[in-house]
């Protein structure tokens, strides 16, 4: 302590000089005249040049810090991008869905698929709407592309629908071009087929298959798929393979049509066939 005191005493002249010079400089730079503005500009230029020169030398710690910051930012932006992509796709899907709604198809319930199976013989989808949304058993399920299936079970807030790839679902269909009728079902091996089509029937690859007016469950004219293959079944009939209009693998939203079988028609047909037997 004494040594420091002695040292300070020895250099007191320089300390006082420094003090007075600093005060003078502070006073000088408190002025706002041409000279000081010029000096400030020069000082800024000099500092800028020095900093520019120093920037060539990389600061390892700064780079590491910046790197961490950029990585975090990258992850954050990647998440944002993913969310935005998802939102964009959803927007496209919903726009298409709304487009379908605009086609004056009255009485539709929009539903989101919450579960689905595609690899079994009896595939179904679970929807996030149920009795509370006026969903009933046997209502058809469609998208803007075409037929999806039919509601087979309903709870308060959920429902299950059989899709075309379900062996229990038979759909009465018609060839849109040649008006040939048939029953479409799933063969359990990955194909939608129309069996028992007369060999002489006019069916060609590329023909569009729609629901038939004979169907009790589905409104007529809903696209079902396109003929991709036709082959002989036996001497009298041939088998027609249909590619569905709906892409079931990326299906996320569907419409449930408030269309129920006509009870009077069903009752009449049932009673007649019972009598006939």
């Amino acid at each position: 302590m004494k040594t420091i005191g002695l040292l300070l005493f020895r250099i007191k002249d320089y300390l006082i000089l420094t003090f007075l010079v600093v005060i003078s400089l502070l006073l000088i730079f408190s002025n706002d005249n041409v000279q000081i503005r010029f000096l400030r500009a020069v000082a800024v230029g000099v500092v800028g040049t020095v900093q520019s020169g120093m920037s060539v030398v990389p600061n390892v710690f700064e780079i590491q810090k910046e790197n961490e910051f950029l990585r975090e930012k990258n992850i954050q932006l990647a998440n944002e991008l993913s969310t935005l992509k998802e939102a964009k796709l959803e927007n496209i899907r919903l726009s298409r869905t709304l487009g379908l709604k605009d086609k004056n198809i009255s009485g539709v319930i929009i539903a989101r698929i919450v579960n689905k199976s595609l690899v079994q013989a009896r595939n179904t989808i679970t929807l996030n709407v149920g009795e509370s949304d006026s969903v009933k058993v046997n209502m058809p399920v469609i998208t803007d592309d075409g037929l999806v299936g039919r509601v087979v079970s309903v709870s308060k807030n959920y429902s299950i629908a059989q899709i075309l790839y379900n062996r229990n679902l038979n759909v009465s269909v018609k060839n849109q071009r040649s008006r040939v009728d048939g029953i479409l079902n799933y063969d359990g091996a990955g194909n939608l087929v129309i069996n028992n089509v007369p060999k002489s029937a006019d069916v060609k690859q590329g023909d569009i298959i729609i629901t038939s007016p004979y169907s009790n469950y589905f409104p007529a004219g809903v696209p079902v798929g396109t003929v991709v293959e036709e082959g002989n079944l036996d001497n009298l009939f041939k088998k027609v393979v249909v590619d569905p209009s709906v892409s079931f693998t990326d299906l996320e939203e569907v419409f449930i049509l408030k269309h129920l079988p006509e009870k009077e028609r069903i009752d009449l047909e049932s009673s007649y066939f019972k009598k006939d037997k």
Partner: protein
Amino acid sequence: MFFSDYIKFALFFAVLIFAQVTLLNLIAISRYNITPDLVLLLVIYLGISRGHIAGMISGFLAGLTLDILSGSFTGLAALSYTVSGFVAGYFHREPGDSSVKFSFIGIIFLCAAICYIIYFSIYFQGSGLTIPEIILNYVLTTAAYTTVFGFMSNLIFNKFDLKKSI
């Protein structure tokens, strides 16, 4: 220094600052209005006779007073007079000190030149004047004019033995 010395020097400074601000313009020379700096002469004298600290502090206070009175560039005269007073302190010799002594006139010229290099090099920033122009037209002429006055003051003070009074 005794308290009466402070009073005496303060009065001297007051008189010289008053003369510097009001009367010295009457004896300005050259088209650049060069005037001798009587205040600086006293600062240098204090530096030589009393040392660094007296030179610096008197230079700072006198310079600051001139800055305030001129109202143009606060702190500039304070800075240049402080440095000049500090440099003058290097030529201070205690009584009986047998080391080399320098010419009073030379010291005045050196200190005045240092003072005005600092003063004018800042004062003329951004004016377009080059450093040689500033040194030739302002620094050396003012320093020389002040030195002449210092020489005359030295003669007068020696002749009438006025040094003892300050």
